[in-house]
């Protein structure tokens, strides 16, 4: 049984959940996609010398947290693909509360050491609070008005999840509180890298990503909208008609020419360097799994830079 099947089983036997078909279905659907970030606790656990099995409760907690956060996020974003369309907002709000509680319940089982469990619970609770604030900011401002607002949303809404996921994995594997704290810090930077990467993808995909249509601003779009460059006015005009394929194509070309994509690449590289420095300062049994997380994000960026250097 792989770890995703294992956590689907473990979720299904949680008190109350065993009789809750809708909760089980949502969790099964999410787990069937085998999200990469659910495995972060396993990677941290193994990095501190723990075995994969030790990380299962932490993995379950991260999975539950992810599903619960997504349910709320889809409602705040009025995402047409959100589960609330089938189940209704009241029921989905109720389910989101349940997933958050299930996550905390799983975290309580993540270690035999009560002190480690307490730190993990505190970390997860802080992550939930920060994420909720970040979601509120994101929804309230709709689109960030300036760059600092963008980074505030990223640091409150996205990065705490990744930090907590690595921290609880390290605690589950028997890592020291100091090591777990170091991995939490690294995870926060890693989360920012993932957010920038996703933003680049959202801005460049076709047809136009809902972020364009809803007037939201992934980092490249924010750059092209705010920075004074020769094609800024043209870009803003195209953004008003972005569902037209020709307008999207031209706007995406401007994103590249004006330096918005270059800025994202530079931001990714800066964070990669910071994360590597943090990693070098953490005492781990094996570095490969954590190091590969960073390399996987940065390798395509370096490859692209080399390909376009001439």
């Amino acid at each position, binding site marked *: 049984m792989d770890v995703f099947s294992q956590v689907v089983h473990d979720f299904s036997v949680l008190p109350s959940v065993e009789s809750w078909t809708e909760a089980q279905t949502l969790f099964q659907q999410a787990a069937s996609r085998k999200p990469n970030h659910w495995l972060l606790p396993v990677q941290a656990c193994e990095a501190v010398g723990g075995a994969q099995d030790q990380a299962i409760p932490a993995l379950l907690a991260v999975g539950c947290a992810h599903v619960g956060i997504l349910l709320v996020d889809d409602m705040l974003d009025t995402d047409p693909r959100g589960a609330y369309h089938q189940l209704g907002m009241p029921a989905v709000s109720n389910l989101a509360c349940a997933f958050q509680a299930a996550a905390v319940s799983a975290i309580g089982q993540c270690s035999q050491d009560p002190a480690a469990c307490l730190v993990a619970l505190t970390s997860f609770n802080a992550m939930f609070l920060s994420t909720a604030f970040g979601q509120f900011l994101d929804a309230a401002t709709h689109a960030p008005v300036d760059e600092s607002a963008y980074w505030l949303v990223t640091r409150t809404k996205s990065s705490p999840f990744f930090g907590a996921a690595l921290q609880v994995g390290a605690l589950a594997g028997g890592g020291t509180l100091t090591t777990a704290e170091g991995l939490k810090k690294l995870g926060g930077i890693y989360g920012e890298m993932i957010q920038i990467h996703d933003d680049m*993808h959202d801005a460049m995909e076709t047809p136009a990503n809902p972020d364009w249509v809803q007037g939201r601003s992934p980092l490249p779009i924010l750059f092209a909208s705010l920075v004074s460059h020769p094609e800024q006015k043209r870009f803003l005009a195209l953004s008003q008609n972005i569902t037209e394929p020709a307008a999207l194509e031209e706007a995406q070309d401007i994103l590249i020419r004006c330096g918005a994509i270059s800025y994202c690449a530079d931001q990714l590289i800066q964070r990669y360097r910071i994360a590597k420095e943090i990693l070098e300062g953490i005492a781990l049994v094996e570095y490969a799994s954590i190091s590969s997380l960073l390399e996987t994000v940065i390798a395509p960026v370096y490859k692209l*830079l080399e390909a376009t250097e001439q």
Partner: protein
Amino acid sequence: MNMQDFYQQLSVKAEQPHQRRLDGLTRASRTQILHVTSELTWYIWGAEASSA
């Protein structure tokens, strides 16, 4: 360095290898960029991550 400062720096002749590469990226194709970003896209807070 914020966005505006970055743009100003990108506008002057690049001397360092890193700057030259970032400048070169402004001449990439849409397909090249999308290919790279598609290699690692997690949709962390998108419905794609949870919908069947």
